[in-house]
């Protein structure tokens, strides 16, 4: 790492005003640190590969995921069908490839939605304190009084008749994640609020939202990014579980969880039907977990050289 960049990071930490001008060197430093961890690199490779598969699904997949090859049901993997065919003769490889799209879509959009709700709530809670804080935090406590998966099920049950299934899952998965973001943001706002530089910008009579956006939010970016990365993996895992129960993505959309569910009764005849979608889920979640852990280490200021 060259000296100039290290200085740039120090400036960033001590002076959030400079943040905007140094985003690039910050990213460069982050990448430098990430490269040092083998598992983080492995995670990044898995995540990038998955994104590429999802984006270029129509190029990679040899067939349409819904296309039925007549007279070819339940085939084992072969040169013609890399992962075999399912019970009605669809190409499993194509289904696994296309399945990445829904997983990625749900993983990312539920995480972004949760942040869009959770961050403003956390800011409001930490910055204004008092009754606002009390009410928001009690609602968050309430959400956390349920196991994540049960809460996701409750949300699905409550809204599935009014909202299309895929969006139902996205909303359910974001609701369960809102408390974690609001708590992270609230915590950093509370501690940052007391800093002198915030006092200073207040004295400059800047508007509240401007103080929050420009001066308080950058302080909690690191934990937010790490949490979000790990949350994408969890969201994909929970989506797969919901679809496995028939409460998530609905056919004809190809989904790993749903395909696993329909493969269970056939497991003795063709175990590959279960193995491929299962391994796809495993690799995806593993990628996000490894990458998230790596990011956490890279962003940890205590590990700074």
């Amino acid at each position: 790492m060259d000296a100039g960049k290290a200085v740039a990071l120090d400036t960033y930490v001590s002076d959030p005003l400079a943040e905007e001008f140094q985003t690039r060197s910050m990213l460069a430093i982050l990448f430098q640190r990430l490269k040092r961890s083998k598992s983080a690199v492995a995670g990044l490779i898995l995540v990038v590969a998955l994104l590429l598969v999802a984006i270029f699904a129509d190029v990679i997949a040899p067939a349409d995921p819904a296309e039925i090859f007549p007279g070819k049901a339940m085939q084992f993997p072969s040169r013609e069908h890399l992962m075999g065919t399912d019970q009605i003769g669809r190409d499993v490889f194509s289904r696994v490839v296309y399945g990445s799209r829904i997983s990625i879509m749900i993983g990312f959009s539920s995480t972004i939605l949760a942040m869009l709700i959770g961050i403003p709530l956390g800011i409001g809670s930490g910055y204004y304190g008092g009754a606002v804080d009390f009410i928001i935090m009690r609602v968050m406590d309430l959400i956390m009084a349920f196991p994540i998966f049960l809460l996701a099920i409750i949300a699905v049950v409550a809204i599935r008749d009014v909202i299309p299934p895929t969006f139902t899952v996205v909303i359910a998965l974001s609701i369960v994640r809102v408390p974690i973001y609001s708590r992270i943001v609230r915590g950093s706002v509370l501690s940052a609020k007391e800093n002198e530089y915030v006092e200073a910008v207040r004295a400059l009579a800047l508007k509240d939202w401007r103080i929050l956006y420009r001066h308080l939010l950058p302080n909690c970016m690191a934990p937010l990014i790490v949490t979000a990365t790990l949350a994408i993996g969890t969201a994909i895992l929970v989506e797969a579980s919901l679809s496995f129960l028939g409460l998530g993505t609905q056919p004809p959309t190809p989904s790993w969880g749903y395909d696993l569910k329909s493969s269970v009764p056939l497991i003795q005849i063709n175990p590959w039907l279960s193995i491929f979608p299962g391994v796809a889920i495993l690799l995806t979640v593993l990628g996000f977990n490894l990458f998230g852990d790596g990011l956490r280490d890279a962003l940890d200021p205590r590990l700074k050289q």
Partner: protein
Amino acid sequence: MKEYIIKRLVTVIPTVLGITIVVFLAMRLIPGDPIDLILADDYSEEARAQLEREYGLDKPFHIQYVKWLWQMLQGNWGRSILTDRPVLPDILMKLPVSLELIIASMLVSLLIAIPAGIISATKPYSARDYMAMTTALVGNSVPDFFVGILLVLLLSHTLGLLPVNGYVEVNDGLWQNLSHIIMPALALGFARAAILTRLVRASMLEVLKLDYVTTARAKGVRERWVILKHALQNALIPTVTVVGLQIGFIIGGAIVIETVFTIPGLGQFGIDAISGRDYPQVQAFILVTAMVFVLSNLAVDLLYAVLDPRISYAKKGSE
């Protein structure tokens, strides 16, 4: 400690009330008016108004909630739409089955995690440490139900050791019961074991560096004894906290695992109710599952109070 226990018991009350509020609101969010359903073809504005009065639906929301809560407290949980049987006794029958699965899964995860964590920590950065840590990493990313499917493939279909699915009550034979619960418990416990192994390893490594361990070694205490008695006791305290945090995942996972292994517990009851849109049953499923969560968290916190290091320290002093 008594003060702590009382305080902790009191905190359960707002949590339970909160849960009932969420369940009450969620059930009312579901579209479809019960009055429309009851009246069907005999619909008229007067009949509707009369029924609304009868069920208290003309009252404000908070009054409706209090009335509903009062009914629930009296054990009046409504009748199933599908079977027309009272919901409460039916769901209470399912409860022990799920509890057995949940407890067995926690035991499995601890039985894997503690030895694996110790083995890793006593020889950090060795081949066996890397192997344990890699397994833990994979375990943390794999869906429970996929582990379940793989276990069925291996232990039932290939090796023919255990039954594929189903459930047998303890009264009908202990071995029969265990042979049906082992695989689901392994599937459910594996992912939890992954997280716990990393934790046991980390806290063992911390503790093994402490002076009192060095002192014990210097006194000539055998290494095995140093690790199992002196170090492990303190390393397990943070583990208890994390076991508590894992309960939610185990309860959630149990819902899925029960459907993989067709175990007639809460999860299967709930999923059947949800797909059959049997809302009195759904409501009971959510309430009971959430209660299991709250009470098991309470149990872990109380256990934590018992394991508190200062308390065991005092005992040692008097020995």
